[in-house]
């Protein structure tokens, strides 16, 4: 993308040169030999006008030149000379240090080892909590969550106690023109990134330093700065969710998915091998009641060849059973002249007694996106033209289809690897054109593979029961080796003055047992249910708020039901809050899972002590630091109170990092010495600014991990 800037600059220089040359040539006196009539006279006068204006502009430009140079010099003086030419950051979300260190020691990650020899390797302290949106927001801003306002994937609305996404707010349009059943919106819905403070690339941009930022989490809607950015987490799918797969099936209804997917009927169309269905797309806000926009789907099977033809929007895709298609475009018509386009990948999962067709979540199409997924707006289209269609969904790998056993390990790995390859192409497209400035690319595959395949890495994981010799038993190790290959390719492209960072935001550990905090709160007299309720309803709907003092919402936090803050709060601010926190800590610190005779919770952290900054009031009151093997249970995450406090986790999602952050640091490697014993992810933003000769602003809390002196040693492979 840097070539946009350089190309544009070169074009301007060429245009200016051409204008001056043409103007000079035209103003040179020549003998007119042709007929000169009135029309030609006007033309000559017009030409003189053009020449006059051109010369005037050239003169003004020349006169202004000293002032422009002076302004640039003043701007430059506000920073020291940059220590680097390019800062290249390759992020592998969730890369675990214990696995990385073992594979490096075994000689299986030679490029990581080489990078460590060139500069250094260290574990990287994550944030409290150690989860992607929080940690990458601290990477982005150099601040603690109290200053960037992201404390979890989820926040809760104190008016309703309902969870909501913590990072993005998509508004609705209140002003509409009603014509019969038609609704014409008179404004666009607002889309806000709720991450606060200022990204370090915005600060670089304020000093005319270019950055390309690819898929760094919590960049939706994208930042506006001098550079280019492709957004990531939490870009929704076309339905407005965080990823809803679809299954078209002839199987009878009643077998509903727990979460994440939609089931549709696949109807036989007069033959054993021809079926029809309807894809429900996004809501059509142009009509009363917001009915879904739909597209008919037709499936024709070739049972003997184990293939099928899927026809949508007049286009036909030839599918082999059990093999994911390429991206298929889906176009939904809203009203005449208005359409919405998404992309999906399809797979026939069965064609025996029953027939089923899987559709991945419908991603926003990057060529003409219906939402702002990049900055500038055309950057996503540029990448699409260069690379073809690519995943745009925030959490693009379909973990839920695997959890629900709609897809299998092989399909998940295919999908994940393909997205990883898309990302690699984006990285090298940007790297090969960046002459000066910063480039950050985050790869998600490591985190997703950790989550879904951890069950195969340890004996007796409840999610791997009955699986003796899994085909993807070494999926995690293979992913780390692939990361090593990517680093090797980047190392080959380093030049003088280039700095390379390879990093992860947190690690990963086992998720064998789930903890239902709300069940624990109820058992211990902190939470009460409404009369007659059994606690099985989701989203804490059965909680009696008039008696409840504490509740858990989100993935890592616990809130007190505080009077004046929560709509039905009963705990008084001040001493009562402190006494309650102490009571809760006394119960939660070192909480035992008696069935397994293991500590489940190491510590409940008081966020009043952890965080500083203007947004700390939005944080949960306590942060739960789970031990290895434990995490919030699936039921608790969806607000179900009923059931046991501890339960086995049998889902494929079998590894996690929403635990005590001290247990899951990230990794950090650089081709320069690391002048700090215990580097943290929060230190990297001020370090990046230091590399470009800028003094980190006062609100940043991390401290540079370099001393600000010119770098020594070989910056690239020798």
């Amino acid at each position, binding site marked *: 993308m840097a070539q946009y800037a350089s190309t544009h600059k070169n074009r301007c220089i060429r245009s200016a040169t051409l204008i001056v040359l043409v103007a000079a040539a035209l103003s040179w006196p020549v003998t007119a030999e042709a007929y000169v009539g009135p029309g030609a006279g006007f033309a000559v006068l017009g030409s003189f006008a053009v020449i006059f204006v051109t010369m005037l502009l050239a003169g003004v430009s020349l006169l202004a030149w000293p002032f422009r140079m002076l302004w640039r010099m003043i701007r430059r003086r506000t920073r020291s000379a940059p220590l680097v030419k390019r800062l290249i950051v390759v992020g592998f979300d969730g890369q675990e240090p214990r696995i990385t260190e073992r594979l490096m020691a075994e000689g299986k990650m030679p490029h990581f080892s080489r990078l460590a020899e060139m500069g250094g390797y260290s574990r990287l302290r994550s944030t409290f909590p150690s989860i992607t949106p929080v940690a990458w927001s601290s990477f982005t*801003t150099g*601040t603690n969550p*109290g*200053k960037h306002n992201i404390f979890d*994937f*989820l926040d809760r*609305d104190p*008016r*309703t106690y*309902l*969870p*909501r*996404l913590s990072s993005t707010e*998509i508004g*609705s349009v209140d002003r509409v023109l009603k014509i019969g059943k038609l609704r014409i919106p008179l404004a*666009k*819905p*607002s*889309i806000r990134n709720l991450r*606060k*403070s*200022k990204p370090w690339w915005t600060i670089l941009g304020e000093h005319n330093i270019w950055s390309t930022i690819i898929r760094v989490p919590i960049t939706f*809607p994208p930042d*506006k700065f001098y550079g280019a950015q492709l957004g990531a987490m939490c870009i*929704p*799918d076309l*339905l*407005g*969710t*965080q*990823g*809803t*797969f679809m299954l078209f099936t002839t199987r009878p209804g009643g077998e509903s998915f*727990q*979460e*994440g*997917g939609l089931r549709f009927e696949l109807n036989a169309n007069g033959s054993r091998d021809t079926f029809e269905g309807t894809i429900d797309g996004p809501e059509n806000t142009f009509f009363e009641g917001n009915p879904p926009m739909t597209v008919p789907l037709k499936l024709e099977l070739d049972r003997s060849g184990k293939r099928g033809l899927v026809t949508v929007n007049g286009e036909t895709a030839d599918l082999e059973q059990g093999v994911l298609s390429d991206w298929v475009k889906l176009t939904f018509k809203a009203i005449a002249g208005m359409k919405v386009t998404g992309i999906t990948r399809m797979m026939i999962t069965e064609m025996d007694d029953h027939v089923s067709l899987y559709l991945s*979540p419908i991603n926003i199409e990057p060529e003409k996106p219906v939402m*702002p997924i990049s900055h500038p707006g055309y950057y996503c289209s540029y990448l699409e033209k260069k690379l073809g269609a690519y995943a745009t969904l925030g*959490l693009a790998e379909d*973990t*839920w289809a695997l959890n629900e056993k709609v897809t299998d390990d092989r399909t998940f790995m295919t999908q994940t690897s393909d997205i990883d390859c898309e990302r690699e192409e984006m990285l090298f497209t940007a790297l090969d054109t960046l002459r000066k400035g910063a480039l950050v690319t985050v790869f998600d595959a490591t985190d997703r593979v950790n*989550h879904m395949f951890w069950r195969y890495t340890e004996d007796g994981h409840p999610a791997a029961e009955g699986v003796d010799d899994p085909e993807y038993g070494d999926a995690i190790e293979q992913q780390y080796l692939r990361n090593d290959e990517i680093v090797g390719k980047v190392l080959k492209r380093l030049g003088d003055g280039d700095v390379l960072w390879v990093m992860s935001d947190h690690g990963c550990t086992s998720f064998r047992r789930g903890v239902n905090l709300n069940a624990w709160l109820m058992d211990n007299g902190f939470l009460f249910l409404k009369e007659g309720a059994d606690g099985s309803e989701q*989203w804490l709907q059965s909680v009696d708020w008039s008696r409840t003092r504490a509740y858990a919402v989100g*993935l890592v936090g616990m809130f007190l039901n505080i009077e004046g803050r929560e709509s039905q709060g009963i705990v008084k601010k001040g001493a009562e809050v402190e006494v309650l926190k102490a009571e809760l800590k006394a119960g939660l610190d070192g909480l035992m899972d008696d069935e397994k005779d293991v500590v489940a919770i190491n510590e409940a952290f008081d966020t009043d002590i952890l965080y*500083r*900054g*203007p*947004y700390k009031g939005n944080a949960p009151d306590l942060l739960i630091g789970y031990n290895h093997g434990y995490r919030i249970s*699936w*039921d608790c*995450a*969806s607000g179900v109170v009923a059931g046991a406090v501890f339960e086995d986790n049998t889902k494929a*999602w079998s590894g*996690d990092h*929403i635990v005590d952050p001290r247990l899951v640091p990230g990794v950090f490697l650089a081709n320069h010495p690391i002048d700090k014993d215990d580097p943290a992810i929060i230190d990297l933003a001020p370090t990046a600014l230091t590399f470009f000769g800028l003094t980190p*602003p*006062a*609100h940043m809390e991390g401290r540079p991990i370099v001393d600000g002196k010119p770098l020594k040693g070989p910056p690239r492979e020798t």
Partner: protein
Amino acid sequence: MFGYTKVKLETSLVDRISKFSDIAGYSSPEEFITHALEKELAQLEDAGAEEEIKKRLQGLGYMS
């Protein structure tokens, strides 16, 4: 969708905001002002529709 508009504030107020924005932990006076206004608005605005909120969370891998 995006966009900014100008609002006139007393110079002395902006001076005070600028003086304290760093101390309060904001990255700029604009962020300080925005946060103050958002907090006030949150007291007045209605909560979103329950179904819409649930739908937006659907598919988040960490939840069931």
